[in-house]
């Protein structure tokens, strides 16, 4: 039972990341009809916003300590971060400790702007082109962004820890009436799940309960008719691209304490997220979220030793296996609409 609950929590955690990326992909596909293979790169840029803020907060001035030597035997250069000099050591260290949550404030405008530039500068030229062209250009863009990140930050994963108060585990078992210590789960992973749930809820609420969202939904259903009503739907769709980029960026920032960011992290998520979108149903936002969590949990259970003892290697193929079964039985995915990508 303990192992079962742990794998459910793990699945929800993985599923949160898949669902957030798939949500952004679906928003872009549903509004602009573009298959965006650079969406994983947006997740990665978000993650590196956290790295960048960590580095900015760590910018230091050097003093020479004659009492110590470096590895070459020269007097040791001691780095003191400016934030510690300006705000005092205690406050300065606290600011650096909270660099990941603070990066959310940075990532929203940065990613929204990047998304807007990407849509206006590149994607709009491919609206009328075949999906294969869109895939090629966005995939190429993802490779370029990955290489740029590698050139600036190197190839090694970079540690971006969560604030000290979120280090360690929470005794989830006690909440469920089990023995103390039977199900302990990392605090930050629980924070990530809660963050995902709130973000997904906020996006749905925005689309469902605001006039802007209503127009966007109408545009997704019938772009031409909305245009004939005198509404500049293109401008709203550009905004949605920026929003999708911001969601991917926030997902990337919050994921950094779970998985140290590296230049290829976007690609690792991209393929799985596309499977999630297809399984959920192209263009269906609830489908993307549902499929994200479902495949996350399935992947988690497939990694259990008991399951792998029966079917070795199942953890590597479970997502694709389920995708094949679902597409054979429900060709439009779990919640796909008729007519999407069928012409």
């Amino acid at each position, binding site marked *: 039972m303990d192992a079962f609950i742990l*794998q459910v929590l793990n699945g929800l955690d993985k599923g949160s990341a898949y669902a957030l990326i798939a949500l952004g992909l679906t928003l872009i596909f549903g509004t602009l009809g573009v298959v965006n293979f650079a969406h994983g790169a947006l997740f990665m840029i978000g993650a590196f916003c956290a790295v960048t803020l960590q580095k900015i907060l760590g910018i230091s001035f050097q003093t020479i300590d004659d009492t*110590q030597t470096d590895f070459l035997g020269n007097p040791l250069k001691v780095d003191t971060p400016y934030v510690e000099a300006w705000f005092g050591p205690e406050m300065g260290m606290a600011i650096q400790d909270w660099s990941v949550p603070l990066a959310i404030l940075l990532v929203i405008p940065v990613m929204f702007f990047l998304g807007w530039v990407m849509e206006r500068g590149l994607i709009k030229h491919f609206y009328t082109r075949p999906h294969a062209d869109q895939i090629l250009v966005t995939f190429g863009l993802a490779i370029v962004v990955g290489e740029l990140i590698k050139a600036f930050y190197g190839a090694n994963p970079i*540690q971006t820890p969560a604030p000290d108060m979120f280090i360690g585990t929470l005794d989830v078992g006690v909440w469920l009436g089990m023995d103390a210590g039977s199900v302990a789960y990392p605090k930050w992973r629980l924070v990530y799940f809660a963050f995902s749930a709130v973000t997904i809820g906020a996006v749905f609420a925005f689309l469902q309960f605001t006039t802007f969202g209503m127009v966007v939904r109408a545009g997704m259903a019938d772009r031409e008719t909305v245009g004939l009503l005198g509404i500049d739907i293109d401008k709203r769709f550009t905004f949605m691209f920026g929003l999708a980029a911001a969601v991917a960026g926030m997902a990337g920032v919050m994921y950094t304490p779970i998985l140290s960011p590296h230049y290829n992290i976007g690609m690792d998520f991209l393929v799985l997220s596309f499977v999630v979108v297809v399984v959920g149903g192209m263009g269906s936002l609830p489908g993307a979220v549902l499929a994200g969590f479902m495949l996350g949990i399935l992947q988690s259970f497939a990694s259990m*030793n008991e399951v792998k003892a029966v079917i070795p290697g199942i953890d590597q193929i479970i997502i694709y296996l389920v995708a094949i079964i679902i597409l054979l039985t429900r060709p439009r995915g779990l919640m796909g609409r008729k007519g999407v990508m069928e012409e």
Partner: protein
Amino acid sequence: MSKSNFSRRGVLKTGAIAGAGLALPTYLSAASHAGYTNAPTGSSVKFGFNVPQTGPYAEEGLDELRAQELAVEHLNGIGDGGMLNTFSEKNLQGDGILGKKVEFVTGDTQTKSDVARASAQSMIQKDGCVMINGGSSSGVAIAVQGLCQDAGVIFMAGLTHSNDTTGKDKKANGFRHFFNGYMSGAALGPVLEKEYGNERQAYHLTADYTWGWTQQESIAASTEALGWTTVQNVLTPVGAGDFSSYIAPILNSGADTLILNHYGGDMVNSLTQAIQFGLKDKQVNGKDFTIIVPLYSELMAAGAGSNIQGVFGSMNWNWQLQDAGTKAFVKSFGEKYGFPPSNAAHTCYVQTLLYADAVTRAGTFNPCGVAEALEDFDFDGMGNGPTTYRGSDHQCFKDVLVMKGSENPTNAYDTLEIVEVTPRAQVEYPVDHPMFAGGDLGECNPGA
């Protein structure tokens, strides 16, 4: 009047053929100049540095490349000479090798065997390399070693730690300076016994390829000999990223020790995530839960940050050693790049110099001559103490370092501390040891 049948063109042709015919026996017997792949004919000779510049082991590969470039500089007389000043052999004078300037080409293996083979093949066929140096993954090293054997060039392995590289997959044209999984187990065993006693329940997470398998086998054998029990060994894919679903089952498995047979970025992620799951703070079977990383590198330690504190592992070499060779190399590398070299960098640097020295002693670039010069070669001054390249399997034997993550690091490079320099005698094994059984060194192949 008689008509002559000789023409100027005919005389030249006949002369050329006769000359070539007379020279042929000399050509065939002159092993020093021909009869082997990519025999250098000009004023330079080319090496191929085949390392991962992308993928989970990229950081190690890039550091290897830095060291290889430094070695070439030293061979060509640029810089302070580094370990050439401390090497027990004094054949290399900084004027290239056998009077030829050393050049090099680089390739990105991407930590993939097929890509590494294609890259090495291009280096041999297109660029004319006489020696390939690199690795950073045993799967890659074994694949490239096999290719070099078939092509007739020498492969000086870089970072490869699988027992199979000089075990069942050993080749006559391949040489490994780096230590192996068996040696890690032999060095770590006594230290782990002293630190954690004889009753431990060990859970292994193992990278699912040749290196992971043989390291796990070696460490399990070593710890079981102490009285430890191996609770479970779970194979994980290379580059998995999120290891949480492999770590969660450990919590209630009854294990009190986690052994991470992971390397590079995978180790950074799995160790960080294991600590996020609170493993290091747990008490199981009345003991503090402990984590062991049998194969360490400075780059991994830097990537793992404070998570590595107090964690035991082993290394081939470390920049903090105080012998003259280490000091010379650290000075050269540190002054050029601004930080200390990793043990991946060290092994590639040493391998490049060892190859150059062997060519000089053999008086030829012929791989069979070079192999003969390297077999059972004793040397010193390269940072590992007295070392021997065993002729029967082409494995180097030398001291091994047992390391621990620094408890109180004082600067950015103070990530690991040397716990013990395990003497070479403790990590030696017979060539027919069961963990190295199978395979055949075969005959040296000069190619062409």
